[in-house]
């Protein structure tokens, strides 16, 4: 297969970026998308140019490192698939593709297709945990958990933190990410003591980081490689309203 690529090249955070054209004449349909870029990079580098920077690590769709826009779609055309698991058989010979980094104010471009997603870590720091010190845990089977709650919690916990939801959202909202983190903990009995304070703090932090608000486009769910549901966002909003409007004085403050 022959692919025509237009890749966003940007030397650093403050540099001006632009698309650059690359011709990839010998692409095998069995290659993953990133392997195509590996081969292109080897060629670029042996010609003395700087290779295209892109983030990747496990290449199994679980670490959440990889991700960029392919023709306007986060992680490319195949549903429920990270770009490392996307294979070239999803494309046609002669296709022209436009590769861009995630675009969001809260995800500044570091270089080429690499962005800074540390805002996600700070949202977790705001309350995405259960305050339990090592050694203080009760016997694991002491408190049974309803299987449906555990399963729903798991569905949300499957989030890999890649940022595709933000990239695809017209508002660059981190609602799906934040809601998934909240639902994971808030649906479990262990998460109840801090449920309200957690909901409030994480939503506030999302704002502080410069992410937009949710206006129910659901593009996030459509591109999420793990199929996280937008119903989690409704739960997040409920938790936030309960925390800020309905509950006073607030209970369950954390230790920080």
């Amino acid at each position, binding site marked *: 297969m022959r692919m025509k690529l237009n890749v966003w090249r940007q*030397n*650093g955070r403050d540099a001006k970026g632009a698309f650059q054209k690359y011709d990839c004449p010998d692409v*095998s*349909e*069995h*290659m*993953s998308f*990133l*392997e195509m870029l*590996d081969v292109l990079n*080897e060629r*670029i*580098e*042996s010609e*003395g140019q*700087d290779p295209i*920077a892109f*983030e*990747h*690590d*496990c*290449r*199994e769709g*679980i*670490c*959440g*490192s990889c991700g960029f826009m392919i023709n306007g779609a986060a992680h490319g055309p195949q549903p429920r*698939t990270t770009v490392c*698991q996307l*294979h070239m058989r999803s494309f046609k010979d002669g296709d022209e593709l436009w590769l861009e980094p995630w675009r969001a104010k809260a995800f500044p471009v*570091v270089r080429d297709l690499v962005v800074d*997603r*540390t805002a996600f*870590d700070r949202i*977790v*720091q705001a309350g*995405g*945990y*259960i*305050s*339990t*010190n*090592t*050694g*203080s*845990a009760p016997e*694991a*089977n002491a408190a*049974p958990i309803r*299987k449906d709650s*555990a399963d729903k*919690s*798991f569905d949300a*916990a*499957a989030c890999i933190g890649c940022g595709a939801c933000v990239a695809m959202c017209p508002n660059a909202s981190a609602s799906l990410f934040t809601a998934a983190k909240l639902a*994971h903990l808030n649906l*479990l009995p*262990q*998460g109840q003591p801090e449920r309200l304070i957690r909901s409030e703090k994480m939503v506030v932090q999302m704002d502080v980081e410069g992410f937009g608000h949710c206006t129910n486009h659901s593009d996030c769910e459509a591109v999420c490689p793990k199929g996280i549901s937008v119903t989690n966002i409704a739960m997040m909003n409920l938790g936030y309203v309960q925390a800020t409007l309905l509950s006073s004085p607030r209970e369950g403050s954390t230790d*920080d």
Partner: protein
Amino acid sequence: MSLPPNKLPTGPIQQAWTERKFSMKLVNPANRRKYTVIVVGSGLAGASAAATLGELGYNVHCFCFQDTPRRAHSIAAQGGINAAKNYQNDGDSVYRLFYDTVKGGDFRSREANVYRLSEVSVNIIDQAVAQGVPFAREYGGLLANRSFGGAQVSRTFYARGQTGQQLLLGAYSALERQIARGTVTMHPRTEMLDLVVVDGRARGITVRDLESGKVSSYVADAVALGTGGYANVFYLSTNAKGCNVTATWRAHKRGAYFANPCFTQIHPTCIPVAGSYQSKLTLMSESLRNDGRVWVPKDPEDCGKHPSEIAEGDRDYYLERKYPSFGNLSPRDIASRAAKEACDDGRGVGPSVEGVRRGVYLDFADAVKRLGKPAVSEKYGNLFEMYQRITGEDPYEVPMRMYPAPHYTMGGLWVDYQLQSTIPGLFVIGEANFSDHGANRLGASALMQGLADGYFVLPFTLADYLAGMKPGGLDSTHAAFKDAEREVAQRTNTLLNIKGKRTVDSFHRELGLMMWDTCGMARTDEGLSATLKRIPELREEFWKNVTISGSGAELNQSLEKAGRVADFLEFAEVMCLDARTRAESCGGHFRTEFQDQGEAQRNDAEYTHASAWEYTGAGNAPNLHKEPLTFTYVKPVTRSYK
């Protein structure tokens, strides 16, 4: 320097850890914040250690090369985590988990370490559940278990196919909580490039900021490495692309002994290589062998045919033939070697890559006939989807193709019972150390060990070390730090100025292929000797002819890779040397010369020891130190699966 005492406890093994915990020194809570501890790596071992030390009140600095600690490669573990909870009432106990692990390690691990691991395994599950890790549950709301890796009891806890991610998110959330409290400072996108030793003690590290390229140092009272394994020495492995030996290797060059580097694990069910561009290998859960049947054509002439055109009588179900009692469920090392033999025999299937077909069929046709498609789909549906996404083939229609791939490394830096290396103040945790798995690791034991070390062992043993010293008294203007920074900067400049013709990846691929051929599933004195001769030549060529674009003052992924490959090119030598020196077959280490009718032949009289290698300078042969292993509770026997 001779090997320091291993500090193994004496007396009954059942009380050993409890007694040790009582006899170790403590640090007063008010004094803890005066001690600075560096944790390198943020996987299960690193994140759990950093979080726990932060909770205790130490001043912790945690480093990872990824953009966030949640991406460490522990995240990719699928299967599960063992714990001796005996929730299934099927006869499990701490002692049985201990027994199975010592035996599974083919009698090349320390009994006391393994016993401690089994003992704290139950606390790990409690801790993870308290953090909100969503383990699989039964309808009654209690935790579910499954049997894994041929164990006779159901002791494996799991979270669908992503137990690693869920456990890591638990440790990560605990870590982020400490970051928010200010007890832990996180340094993402920061790579450790040297260990700094002052007056014989580990006192800090030198790092490169991967975005700005700035080289700097951090001073501490102790350093813990949780930097994972070295399976990427093979280039193609199931490890993440960034996994590397750099942190442990550079610590080795500063005086930490490297133990049993030849003990590597090859996982039998991975998706085969599709072409020379292949960048990594994908593991498919071992559970597939519960219902899939492994076969290759009897006649090499049939290998190019579509499998449906090969008659039943022309198929060789070699595992069922060779190992009638275990069949397709033979242990990892045995199943892996048998696949290699079939392909070496010219009977491999799938696309031919560089002239050889390397793949065997894993066929579900019988299972579909026996159980029906819905039942097969319920058990393996997600794995089939994953396979189809990568290969474009539907396992319901065409048998899956599998080939073994490097997966985990049992060897690592030598540590004593306190998890301290041969350098005082340098602790090593998780896959990066060597201590618990011997020559072969059992399924679902890697997650257990990483978290055991980080949550429940290091916090005690580190306190014992710190309590014996005064905190601080040093800053990064000390000559040892300045020297390390200068060396790191020089090395970077040297790499960038070679401006040769070959890419970093091309060197890595060549090294990897050579290691796979001669130090992979089967090793011979002859093959290892040839590779030992070839490695220095390849290394020399690397330092003359590698090409790296860009500068050192920016995000430069080629430069990062180059530094890691340079270290693999040194490390590979001691790995081959260790494999050649260990003239026996045990666990994952199979020396073709030492077998009995195709089965591994251990030599307990001469090799019941851990091999710890001491670095003696560039170009010099390393010194070998032997730590004898004694078996008081589990008597060595020969493994047989026929």
